[in-house]
C-alpha cells in the first residue's frame, strides 16, 4: 500500500475558520449540511483512490431533531493509522493537498477538520472516528479541535478486534437543514456518482430512503501526476509561499527547479528584467521582488505546460455513468483537447448532454401536484466535484447560457441534462467556498465550443424524433378520415366500401409510416373578403 501519510504539514488556522466559516462553505443551513457531506465524501474518495481501491461509500444523513442531524460517511479505503487520526481530522490545513500542484477534488486540506469543527461549534459534541486497515484491529475515538492551538483533542480511545477496512466518521450537526432542493445531499451524491462512475454509493437520506448508485466501471482512474507549476500561472502570493518549501539556495535555482518550462536561459531572462541579484536566497525574497519576478514572467513566452497531468472523466466513462444513472434516450458526450487559461494553467473541458429518460428536471406546473413541466438542468463540476451553489456567478453557467440552444432545435422545456466538468490542476474558483468558476474568456470559449458540438448532435436527434412523432400523429389523424371518405365515395360511385378503405389506408401508410412529413402548404381558398362573410350562412 502506498504510504500516503508522510507529508502532513501543520498550519494554525482553526481560529480563523471559526470566525470565517462562511468562507469555507458553512453559510446557510442547507449549504452547511451539503458541505459536510461533500468534505467527508471527498476525503473518503481521495483515500481510496490514492490506495488504488475502487471506492465503496456508505453515506447516511439522519435527522435527530429540529435542525439537528447526524452525518455518517464510511469508506473501504486503507484506514488511517492511529497516530495520524488527530492530524487527519483534527487539524486545519493538515492534509497532503496543500501546496501541491496536482489535480485534486479539494484544494485546501481544510475539509475534514472543518466538519469536525462545525459539529463541535453547533452541538458541543465530538466527532466519532472508527478506522482499521483490515488487520483485524479496529481503532475508535472521539475527537474535537482545540481552537487556540489547532490541535486535536482525542478522547474515549478504544481498540478492539473485528473485521473492517476503511474509515467511518460520524458527526452531529445543528443549524443545518435538509429539504427538497437541488442543493441537498441527495442531489450532491447523484451528481457525484455521475462524475465518478468508478464509485459505488449507498446513501440513506433523512427520510430513510435508500439510494444505491452502482459503479459503472470497475477500474480506479489513474491518479493525476503531481506537476510543477507553469510560470505563466503563478501569482505573487503563490511564489512567496513556494519559497518557504524549497530547498534551492538561490532564487535562480528556485525558479529552474520548482517550475516547469523554466530553463536556465529563461531564468537569466528574468534576471535581466529584475533589479535584484537572483543569487539571493529564495526565503529572503520580499513581496516587491516577487512582484518583479511575476511581471517579468508575464512579458516572456514559455513552452505550453504539459497536459498529461490532467485526468478527465473521459468520454467512455461519462457515457457509462449517464447510462447508469440518467438512462437517457440519447446522449452526446465530448471531451475537449487540453487548453490553458491565464497564459499557463492547463485545463480540460468535458460536456455531456443527456436527453429524456431520467435526465432534466421537472418543475411543478399548475396547482395539481401531478403536473410537471420539463426543464433543462445544468450540472457543473470541477475536478469531478459537483458545484451546487453560486450558479449565477459561475463561468460554467454563463457558458451554458450563452449557447443558443434553440438554434439546434433544443427548447428550454426539454428533459435535458447539461453536464460540464472542468478539470484542472488549479481550478480558478470565485471564492473560498469553491462553488463557482470565474468567467475567464478562455474557459468560457472552450466550454461553449464543446457544448455547441454536443448540442448539434443532440439537436439532430431531437428534430428527427419530433418528425417521427409528428408523422405518427398525422398518420393517426388521417386514418380517422378513411371511413368518412370511403363512405362518401361509395355513395357517389358504388365502389366497394372495403376496397376503398383498404386502399386509402395503404396510401396513408405508404406516405406517413416512413417518418416523412410534407410541410403542408396552406390553401388559399379561404381568402374571402371580410365584407362578404355575413352573407353566407343562415
Amino acid at each position, binding site marked *: 500500500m502506498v504510504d500516503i501519510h508522510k507529508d502532513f504539514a501543520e498550519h494554525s488556522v482553526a481560529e480563523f475558520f471559526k470566525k470565517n466559516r462562511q468562507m469555507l462553505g458553512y453559510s446557510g443551513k442547507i449549504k452547511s449540511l451539503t458541505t459536510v457531506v461533500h468534505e467527508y465524501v471527498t476525503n473518503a474518495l481521495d483515500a481510496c483512490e490514492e490506495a488504488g481501491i475502487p471506492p465503496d461509500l456508505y453515506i447516511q444523513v439522519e435527522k435527530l431533531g429540529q435542525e439537528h442531524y447526524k452525518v455518517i460517511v464510511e469508506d473501504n479505503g486503507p484506514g488511517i493509522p492511529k497516530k495520524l487520526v488527530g492530524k487527519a481530522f483534527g487539524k486545519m490545513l493538515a492534509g497532503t493537498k496543500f501546496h501541491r500542484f496536482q489535480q485534486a477534488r479539494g484544494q485546501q486540506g481544510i475539509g475534514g477538520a472543518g466538519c469536525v469543527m462545525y459539529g463541535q461549534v453547533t452541538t458541543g459534541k465530538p466527532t466519532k472516528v472508527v478506522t482499521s486497515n483490515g488487520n483485524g484491529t479496529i481503532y475508535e475515538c472521539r475527537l474535537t479541535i482545540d481552537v487556540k492551538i489547532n490541535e486535536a483533542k482525542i478522547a474515549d480511545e478504544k481498540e478492539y478486534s473485528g473485521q473492517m477496512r476503511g474509515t467511518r466518521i460520524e458527526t452531529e450537526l445543528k443549524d443545518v437543514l435538509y429539504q427538497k432542493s437541488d442543493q441537498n445531499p441527495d442531489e450532491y451524491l447523484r451528481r457525484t456518482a455521475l462524475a465518478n462512475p468508478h464509485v459505488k454509493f449507498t446513501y440513506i437520506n433523512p427520510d430513510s430512503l435508500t439510494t444505491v448508485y452502482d459503479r459503472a466501471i470497475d477500474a480506479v482512474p489513474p491518479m493525476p501526476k503531481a506537476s510543477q507549476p507553469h510560470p505563466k500561472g503563478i501569482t505573487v502570493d503563490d511564489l512567496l509561499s513556494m519559497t518557504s518549501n524549497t530547498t534551492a539556495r538561490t532564487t535562480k535555482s528556485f525558479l529552474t527547479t520548482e517550475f516547469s518550462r523554466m530553463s536556465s536561459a529563461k531564468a537569466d531572462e528574468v534576471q535581466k528584467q529584475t533589479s535584484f541579484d537572483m543569487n539571493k536566497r529564495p526565503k529572503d525574497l520580499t513581496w516587491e521582488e516577487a512582484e518583479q519576478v511575476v511581471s517579468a514572467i508575464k512579458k516572456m513566452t514559455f513552452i505550453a505546460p504539459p497536459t498529461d497531468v490532467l485526468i478527465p472523466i473521459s468520454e467512455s466513462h461519462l457515457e457509462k455513468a449517464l447510462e447508469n444513472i440518467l438512462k437517457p434516450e440519447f446522449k452526446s458526450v465530448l471531451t475537449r483537447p487540453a487548453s490553458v487559461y491565464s497564459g499557463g494553467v492547463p485545463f480540460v473541458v468535458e460536456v455531456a448532454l443527456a436527453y429524456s429518460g431520467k435526465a432534466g428536471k421537472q418543475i411543478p406546473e399548475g396547482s395539481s401536484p401531478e403536473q410537471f413541466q420539463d426543464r433543462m438542468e445544468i450540472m457543473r463540476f470541477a475536478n469531478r466535484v459537483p458545484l451546487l451553489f453560486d450558479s449565477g456567478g459561475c463561468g460554467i453557467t454563463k457558458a451554458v447560457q450563452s449557447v443558443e440552444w434553440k438554434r439546434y432545435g433544443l427548447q428550454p422545456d426539454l428533459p435535458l441534462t447539461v453536464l460540464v466538468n472542468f478539470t484542472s490542476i488549479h481550478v480558478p474558483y470565485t471564492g473560498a467556498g469553491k462553488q463557482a468558476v470565474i468567467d475567464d474568456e478562455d474557459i468560457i470559449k472552450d466550454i461553449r465550443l464543446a457544448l455547441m458540438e454536443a448540442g448539434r448532435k443532440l439537436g439532430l436527434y431531437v428534430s428527427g424524433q419530433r418528425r417521427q412523432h409528428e408523422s405518427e400523429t*398525422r398518420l393517426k*389523424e*388521417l386514418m*380517422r*378520415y378513411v*371511413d*368518412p*371518405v370511403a*363512405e*362518401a*365515395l361509395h*355513395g*357517389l*360511385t358504388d*365502389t366497394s366500401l372495403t376496397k*376503398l378503405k383498404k*386502399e*386509402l389506408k*395503404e*396510401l*396513408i401508410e*405508404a*406516405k406517413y409510416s416512413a417518418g416523412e*412529413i*410534407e410541410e*403542408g*402548404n*396552406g*390553401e*388559399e*381558398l*379561404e*381568402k*374571402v*373578403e371580410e*365584407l*362578404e362573410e*355575413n*352573407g*353566407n*350562412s*343562415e
Partner: protein
Amino acid sequence: MATASDDVRKKLKALGTKVTKEIEAKESPRIEIPVRGLSNVEYDEKSGLLKLGGQVSKRSFLNYAHAKKFMQTMLVANFAYNELLKTGIHTSLRDMFYALKRTLPGSNENTFEEQIESDHCVVDLEVSVDTLREDLHLSADVRGRVVGPVVIKDRGDTIDWAKLGSGGWAIPSNVEEIEFKKVDAKFILVIEKNAAFERLHEDRYWEKNNCIIVTTQGQAARGPRRLIQRLSTEYKLPVYVFTDGDAYGWYIYSVIKYGSMALAHTSDRLGTPDAKFLGLTMKDIEKYKLEKYTIKAKPVDIKRAKDMMKYDWFQTKAWQNELKTMLEKGYKAELEALSSKGLKFITETYLPEKIKNKDFLE
C-alpha cells in the same frame, strides 16, 4: 327540374369516379378547386362583371394540411348527391351541417366543428364542379323583402307584390322558378336598410313613383340579387342602389352590380351591371348639409376605402373622387341622417330630386 338535378348528379358522380380512380392507381386523391378571393378575381370590362380567374388549387387527401377539408368536401358531395338531389329534397346550409356533423371514432374530433366549414365546402363544390348551391338543392340565406306593382307566380300561387300589407314579399333563396305575370314598374330601388324600406313602404313611395322597392337587409343574399338581375334584364328596368355612405354600403352596391369576389363564379347569374349608386354620397352630405350628422370614419372604413380605390371596377373618376373625399373628410354617414331634415324628407325631397336629376355615382 329533373334534368337540371340529373346534370348536377352526373357532375358529382364524375368527381367521385375521378377520385376513386386515383386511389386505385395509388396516387394521391385530389380535388381541383379554382382559387377564390381577390387574387383570382378579374374584372371583365366587357360584361361589367367580376369573373373567376384561372388559378386552381389542389386539395389532396394525403397532404396533412388538406386532408380534413378533402374529407369534408367528399361528405358534402355525397350528401347533395344522395340525400338531396336523388330524393328531390331541398335543405338549408345549417340543416346540412347538422346532418353531416358527427364525432370521428376514437377521437374528440368531429367531421365538422363549425358550420362555416361545411359552408365553405359548398362553395368549393360549386366552383369545382361548376354548379350553383341552388342546383345542389341547398338554400342560401333567406333575407330580403320586396313590394311594388308586380304580380308573380310561385309554386302555383299567384302573388301580387302590391297587396301584401305592411310586410311585403319575403324573397326566397331560389327565384329561378318564379314567373313574372305583370311588371308595371319604371325602376327598382334597392335599399340596404330595413328601416328605410319600412318608411318608404309606409309612405307608399313605390305606388306614387311606380317602382319596385327591395330591401337587402344588409349584404345582399343570393335570392334578392338574382331577383334584381332578372327584373332588370327581363324588363329593362333601371336599378338604383341606396345605402349608407360608407365602405360597407359601397360594397353592397358593388356586389349587386359586379358580383362578389367570393362567389365570382356566379356573377353571370347574380350581377346586375346596369345598377347605379344613388346615395348616400359625399356630395349629398354637403348639398343637404348633413355634416353635423356624420360619424367619424373608423380605421377599418379607411382601410376598406383605400382597398376599393385600387379595385379595377372602382376606377371611374366619380368613384375615385367619392373615395378620396371620404378619406379627406374622414367621416361617413348613415342614410338615416336624412331624417334630420324631417321624416318625409327621403320620400318627398331627396329621392325625387336624385332620380329626376340622375344624380348617380357610376
